[in-house]
């Protein structure tokens, strides 16, 4: 496990995640009301990047087939996905959002 830089806090916009690639793993980092949350950027249904999906109220929708995930918990909320996405810890270190993997 190690902390990886994502972006500085002021680069984030509401409902627009930042994507960071850690090794083989693409991670989408979202700013919500109560902090930063990181999930795997790949839908568990078929291959699609969740960061390209519609995002609202702490949920993100897959852009291909509209599977919906809770950004805070990674939980799959709606068909066609049934498997949760992985979540990763985040922190802010001297103004830089970081993700732990």
């Amino acid at each position, binding site marked *: 496990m190690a902390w990886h830089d994502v972006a500085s806090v002021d680069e984030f916009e509401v409902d627009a995640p930042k994507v960071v690639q850690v090794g083989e793993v693409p991670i989408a980092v979202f700013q919500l009301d109560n902090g930063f949350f990181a999930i795997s950027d790949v839908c568990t*249904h078929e291959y699609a990047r969740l960061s390209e999906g519609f995002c609202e109220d702490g949920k993100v929708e897959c852009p291909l087939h509209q599977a919906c995930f809770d950004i805070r918990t990674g939980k799959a909320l709606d068909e*066609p996905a*049934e498997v949760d996405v992985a979540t990763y810890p985040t922190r802010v270190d001297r103004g830089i959002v970081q993700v732990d993997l």
Partner: protein
Amino acid sequence: MLVGNETDLPYDRPPLSKEILLGEEQPRGLMQRSHDAFAAQRIDLRLGTHIARLNATAAHVETQTGDLIPYDSLVIATGARARTLPLPIASDPRVLTLRSLADARALRGHLRLGLRLAVMGAGLIGLEVAAAAARQGCLVTVLELADRVMARCVPSRISARIESWHRAADVQLRLSCPVRDVRAERDCLRIATDTDDIEVDLLLVAIGAVPNTELAQETGVAVQDGILADECGRTSAPSIFAAGEVARILQPSGHYKRFETWQVAQYQPISVAHAICGVDKPYLDLPWHWTDQYKHNVQIIGDCGLGLEWLEREDAEGRLAALGVDPDGRLQAAILIDNGREVTPLRRLIMANRPIPRERLLDAALSFKQLHVA
């Protein structure tokens, strides 16, 4: 109890015309559950079982082997079958259709580098198969009666964009091209068109689907291109319900409509289950389907068959959208290419059912989310 004539465990169909043909054995999108998963839900799963007869008076169905299965409630979810070629050649082993997982595996078994494949029908399934086969190195010709692809559900500029993907993959698109005859020769199939003959190794017939209504019809349940069902899936017969694409569902407009989409297979049966339990939960979802071809995703939202005027807009990244408006300027349907992020805002915009100034709809600088909020 869940009775079906296929021997495969139940599955989702979208990967059949894509990942399965590309060689994936168990694509995630197949969503195939284990026997244990059914057992855990106390569902008695009877695969490979044909229902021969339905007796609504006695409230039982009879299997082909003579077993009687009594019911309190019966859901007919027999789906649809591929429409076949009305020619004797339809039974030739080189003439295939695609509907089931077994069909998809059979088709995949044929695909190889240099195979000459003709696809009859440039609808969603025909085009997805053409895309997958082209990727597998087949020499693909698509034969379509209409003058453009997907003519039934998208306007012409969207058709043109989809056609460009296929041409870029060296798929031969023969539009306005009726097939006059197909003959078997010793080492090929000969397809006669108005202009010439085409020789191929394999023909996929993708000319639509026919609902499997026979059981219902024989017992007197009202059928008209599908089993007529109300918003909750109730048929004309007590205790008999229709679910999925065999159902022709009552719409808010008062018309009945049958859908061949994943959305209806997924969500309409939830209304049926509620109705069986005595709870009215009408199925009123805005129609939605998609197609994935090559690296592209097309989203189709709303009822495109309403005689709409189509407006088109393309944003700075070249993402094309077609917006179908009615004479009052209300958005009724929309098609998005490679822009799934906008599906939900567009769905809301359509559901809001209010006129939207044309110049705002056409302003590609406004996202649909912004339009909805405004």
